[in-house]
């Protein structure tokens, strides 16, 4: 149960145990914050083989605390890849057929340049000296990675939650390079409530005395308590009231009666504490601040004069959106408003709402209806793209 301890993530930040592409001073990353990031690096994983026509590439975009290890054992946690139920040889996204790419986002902490990476100017981690990163910045970096592979058009870009935001950004920024797009459990903007939850998480991190204004590396410390609390609060939003009650109810943890104290009397408390503790072993606190901020800043309609349909004007990309009935972080209405915008733009769009009580995190789980939808969509897109099975 115990994951490798601190320090490990720091190594992964500079020397990831996955391929890494380094961009020198001649190829800076233009950031929405108005500055250039240079040098910078992108850590990524690939699975399968790029065909001769370079037409079978699928880009997977990870969520808030995800990473590039989508379909291989995670080097930090030792757990299976976060979407191994979906991606792999013979799976729905068959790596015997498709060339799957997944990269750690800019601002992350598993090898792409982020606040835990060493700032070449100081020889110390960037910390808060790294400019705020946006979803569009992440996508711009991914585009440079895709260009590196010589891929002119991605067969599909898919992802859930923050990954879904990247999918939407890809389809909007580079429509000619996205044949099909599959944003799952996401929105075209972060709602006020979602920003509120993120702010609670950030304040928890910053309230931890070990945060040291983001310079905890200088003190050989990490704001573990603050980050754990942030994760606990966030984790509740990934589930649903019904699922929590089904799993935990008011069951007591290793005891017969209430203790009349503040121990973890209830199973749900113990569960959340465990979630918080294991999270700090694999994630950098500053990176958590940057990741949450990137989602808060995302508002695709605002980037297009307030009209979401204009973000997709003239698009030829085939879209499929998926939402889950019990997702209160990105409720179905968020997906539906994207669907309406795509309709208005005359786009080809499918939209599936899946009934489940597993909340937002359903997109990461074994959901047969989700897999059926992805399978049908990818299959028909592959036929349209002329990819043989």
């Amino acid at each position, binding site marked *: 149960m115990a994951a490798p301890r601190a320090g490990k993530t720091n190594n992964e930040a500079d020397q990831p145990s996955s391929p890494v592409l380094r961009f020198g001073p001649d190829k800076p990353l233009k950031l929405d914050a108005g500055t250039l990031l240079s040098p910078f690096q992108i850590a990524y994983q690939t699975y399968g083989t790029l065909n001769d026509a370079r037409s079978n590439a699928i880009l997977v975009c990870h969520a808030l605390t995800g990473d590039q290890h989508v379909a291989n054992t995670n080097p930090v946690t030792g757990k299976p890849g976060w979407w191994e139920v979906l991606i792999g040889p013979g799976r729905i996204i068959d790596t015997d057929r498709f060339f799957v790419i997944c990269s750690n986002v800019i601002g992350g902490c598993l090898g792409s340049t982020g606040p835990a990476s060493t700032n070449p100017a100081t020889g110390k981690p960037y910390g808060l000296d790294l400019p705020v990163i946006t979803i569009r910045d992440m996508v711009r970096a991914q585009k440079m990675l895709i260009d590196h592979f010589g891929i002119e058009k991605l067969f599909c870009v898919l992802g859930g939650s923050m990954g879904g935001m990247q999918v939407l950004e890809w389809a909007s920024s580079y429509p000619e390079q996205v044949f099909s797009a599959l944003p799952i459990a996401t929105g075209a903007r972060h709602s006020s409530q979602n920003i509120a939850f993120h702010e609670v998480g950030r304040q928890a991190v910053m309230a931890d005395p070990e945060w040291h204004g983001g310079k905890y590396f200088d003190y050989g410390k990490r704001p573990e308590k603050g980050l754990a609390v942030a994760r606990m609060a966030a984790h509740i939003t990934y589930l649903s009231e019904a699922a929590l009650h089904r799993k935990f109810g008011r069951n007591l943890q290793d005891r017969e009666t209430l203790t009349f104290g503040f121990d973890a009397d209830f199973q749900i408390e113990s569960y959340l504490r465990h979630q918080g503790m294991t999270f700090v072993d694999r994630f950098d606190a500053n990176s958590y601040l940057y990741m949450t901020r990137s989602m808060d800043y995302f508002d695709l309609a605002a980037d297009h004069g307030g009209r979401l349909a204009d973000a997709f004007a003239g698009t030829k990309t085939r879209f499929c959106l998926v939402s889950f009935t019990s997702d209160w972080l990105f409720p179905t209405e968020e997906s539906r408003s994207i669907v309406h915008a795509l309709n208005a733009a005359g786009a*080809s769009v499918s939209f599936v*709402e899946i009934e489940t009580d597993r909340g937002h995190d359903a997109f990461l789980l074994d959901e047969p209806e989700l897999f059926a939808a992805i399978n049908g969509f990818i299959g028909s897109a592959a036929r349209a793209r002329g990819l043989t099975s």
Partner: protein
Amino acid sequence: MSVNGSQRVDLEVVANLIPPRSRVLDVGSGDGSLLELLQDTKQVDGRGLELSQRGVNECVARGLSVIQGDADKDLEFYPDKGFDFVVLSQTLQATRNPKLVLDELLRIGDRAIVSFPNFGHWRVRLSLFVNGRMPVTKDLPYSWYDTPNIHFCTIRDFVNLCEELGATVEKATALDGNGQKIGLSMPWWFWNFFGQQAVFLLKR
């Protein structure tokens, strides 16, 4: 949302009105039968709008481009003349506001194809006349209190509505109980009496 699933004899008739490689929106696409037929035989660029989530999920799993939505609420999001054909098959009578829906179809599509069960069919008339109760026939199997068909009309009613909306009837076909076309030269009253279903091709 196609309400009378068992009696889709109109599908072939509808499909024959659509030339290859058209852009088609099927409103109330049900299980996707028409879209699949059109995609396989006419290579159309087809989209669907369907009320039932189960229908939608099945369609998408079969590779069709379908979204969950309501003909009464969601047509407003489609741009003017975004499609060559908008099809409303066996669904008009189940909408809340058939006039508005038809108006939207004519706005969104260069042409609209509408099929519906004819409430003026002699069997319906006979049933009401003889029994004095709301007709329940083999093809209209619901009781008045649980029917999704809240806005039945006759062929003549529909022709009047088209006139009101300034739509031109480019082609009209009435089908008898066996799904056979009724001779073209017959007058409206004859169709209205013997047509069990009607398929209209409209333009505005």
